[in-house]
């Protein structure tokens, strides 16, 4: 079960049980919805920018709660980008994207990614990388105020 211990790390199980920043930020300067039609994961994201800084960010699960990987990833994402500038958040998104799409043999940039590195295990499961990426694509949409809901398909 070593593979699974990597995927279902204690940090991920904890963030799945108790996702952080579950709230609707009001008033919001950016909102977006994310869907993974494959499994029905759905996420609504609200954030408030003050100048260039993401002053507050909240997530809710408008449908039924998603899988552990997508829920934990969303929770960890909010913690990672809160208080960061938009540029820093986008750089984290890029680093996360590199990690999750790289072959398993590639080293993980733990220095940049911090707690987010706990999700590296998802890249060994081709069907699960979308679960880990959903929150980040939704964040990107909220920051760029893209009109259409984000979908992993």
């Amino acid at each position, binding site marked *: 079960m070593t593979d699974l211990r990597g995927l279902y790390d204690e940090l991920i*199980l904890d963030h799945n049980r108790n996702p952080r920043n579950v709230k609707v930020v009001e008033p919001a300067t950016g909102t977006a919805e994310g869907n993974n039609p494959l*499994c*029905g994961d759905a996420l609504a994201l609200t954030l408030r920018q003050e100048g260039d800084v993401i002053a507050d960010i909240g997530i809710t699960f408008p449908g039924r709660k998603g*899988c*552990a990987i997508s829920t934990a990833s969303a929770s960890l994402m909010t913690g990672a980008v809160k208080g960061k500038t938009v540029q820093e958040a986008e750089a984290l998104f890029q680093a996360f994207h590199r990690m999750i799409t790289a072959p398993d043999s590639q080293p993980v940039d733990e220095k940049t990614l911090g707690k987010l590195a706990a999700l590296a295990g998802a890249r060994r499961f081709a*069907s*699960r990388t979308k679960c880990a990426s959903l929150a980040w694509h939704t964040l990107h949409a909220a920051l760029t105020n893209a009109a259409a809901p984000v979908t992993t398909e």
Partner: protein
Amino acid sequence: MTTTRVGPPAGPASAFDVDAVRADFPILHTTVHGRPLVYVDNAATSQKPRQVIEATDRYYAEQNANIHRGVYYLSERATAAYEDVREKAARFINAAEAREVIFVRGTTEAINLVASSWGRANLSAGDEVLVTAMEHHSNIVPWQLICEERGAVLRVIPMSRQGELLLDEARRLVTPKTKLLALAHVSNSLGTINPVRELAAVAHGWGAVVLVDGAQAAPHLKVDVRALGADFYTVSGHKMFGPTGIGLLYGRADLLEAMPPYQGGGDMIRSVTFAKTTYAPIPSKFEAGTPNIAGVVGLGAALDYLNALPWPAVMAHEHDLHDRAVVQLSEIPGVTIIGTAKHKASVVSFTMDGVHPHDVGTIVDQEGVAVRTGHHCTQPVMDFLQIAATTRASFAFYNTRADVDALVRAVKKVREMFA
């Protein structure tokens, strides 16, 4: 074991020898993540016995030629093999005539053929097509497409939370406006065996025709299209131990004869001029182009295999697996069985409190257990039950009690991990 045996040994119906059957399925003796494969995703697709694999190989190695127009030995032999399977398939579902059997890619294509060809000729503005709340998307979307095109209306027979159709509602919904009733013989996500015969009689009472999606029934039940009252019946080869990409559409001869072609091309014509083309009689009218000949030959081997099984004992065996899984899974804290109809095929869908089915699927896969997770192409069923998805184990005759136990052990591991 000799290599000439074409099916499991005949024996007393009460003594179904599951080990002998398993010996015919090479993939059941492979490992996944270092563990013996426990394949319980048969509602998605079934595994293939070597008799099917060898028949397809032999076709390509010794018999391959295009059918119907060749005047040489190989082509005549390939044509005979192809048409033999049509006869065999007609007997398998108890069609009155072989020409009522059309070879298609699968159930999806069969339903699209009827919706497109029959629908275009028979549906007008204000007409109604009736489906049920538990249909697979492939028995919903083709009807939505043709209803939109023709200005017809799609109506839905509701079901109970246990997964049984509400027959009183069904009787109320069938009216003179109803032109066609399309329903699953067996639900793929809930396992419900629907009362097709009763519903078909109600529909016929108002002059509607009845299409039955038999994708999940043909691998598990004895199908008799005439006893059921099915005007159309659809079958997928790959779900009944045959190759992918081949299936059957049964249609009553008088209906098929009156329907316009679905696709144009070779083999479906009587004569072609630039001024006017006349069409071949059924079944050729609906088989444009070179068909999946190897698939048909493989399907024939699958039908032979199924015909040789001791059916009452096979059904009792599958029932035993279903009941064992339901009892043992229900004992795991937080597990809820989804689909508890009185009459069910060997499909066990369930949810687990606090754990998404995709997490269940990934974790049990590490134990070698292959289950389906998601909405199973029945999103309206998930919406009705207010769940996002389920984990689904679906058994075939080659599954064992040990497979059920491995599934249950793996699901218990999930429970521990998410305690």
